[in-house]
């Protein structure tokens, strides 16, 4: 009976790989990781490609710093500047309007006084 439906090594391997990708099996993952990292690499990558990769990875430092610090800081500064500008402008406008009103009222009072005196 065991001759029938016999499962081959490569089939077991395929099924294990399928399980590795499709299911979150931490035990299998750890065992596979142990196997992969314990032995030496069978394919040696080209030095040029390796250098290119390292260069690309180390170059991203600015990108990381930009994303982590510069971009948020710039955003905060911009928002604060806009808020300050509008608040300051509004206050100025209000002050100007108050002064204008006061002047207008004073002028009117002077005019009224002059009119009363002349008449």
């Amino acid at each position, binding site marked *: 009976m*065991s*001759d029938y439906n016999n499962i081959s090594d490569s089939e077991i391997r395929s099924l*294990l790989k399928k399980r590795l990708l499709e299911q979150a099996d931490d035990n299998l*993952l750890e*065992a*596979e990781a142990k196997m992969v990292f314990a032995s030496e690499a*069978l*394919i040696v990558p080209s030095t040029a490609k390796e250098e290119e990769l390292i260069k690309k*990875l180390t170059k991203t430092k600015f990108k990381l710093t930009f994303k982590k610090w510069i971009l948020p800081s710039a955003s905060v500064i911009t928002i604060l500047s806009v808020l300050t500008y509008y608040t300051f402008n509004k206050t100025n406008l209000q002050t100007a309007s108050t002064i204008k009103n006061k002047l207008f009222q004073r002028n009117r009072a002077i005019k009224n006084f002059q009119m009363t005196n002349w008449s």
Partner: protein
Amino acid sequence: MNKSTQETYHLAELDRNSFITVVYNRYGKKLYSYAIKSWNVNEDAAWDLIYKTIYKVTEVYRNYKFESEEKFASFIFKIFINYLRNHYRDNKTERMFEFTAMDDVDLSTKKISDTPESSNKKLIVLNEVLDKMEDWERMLLLMRSEGRAYSEIATYIDKPENQLKVYYQRLKEQITKKLNERL
């Protein structure tokens, strides 16, 4: 402790660029070879996977605490597998594995054809068997099915080398028996 022996996850506190280089030398090279050899990924895709994996590791590893180098290795491997999964999801036409078992199966006596349905049943059976296995048994099944020699497997499993073949045959029989019950 010098850089060559220090745990990788401690190196980044010293220098980010060294960390990247060490991660690549310790893990990236092996993952590159693994991606091409075990998963039939083309060279460009393999480099892309390694880039994404190391980039992600560098970005997020500080959020985690690692008990050992082994745990750190599992962490890297998990990230790599996630990207590999995405790669196959995005490139559905690529075949990651084939059920062309020609090595140790006598096709003349093989009753079940490898239709997707039978493959799924095999996967279900394998899952059931794997769930009940001990760690060393899982390791044995994994390494032997990958074609590793028993002498090599014996260095990772605390069992006598001459017994490993017997254990492996038993595991295969166990799976076959379950398969016969189901199919």
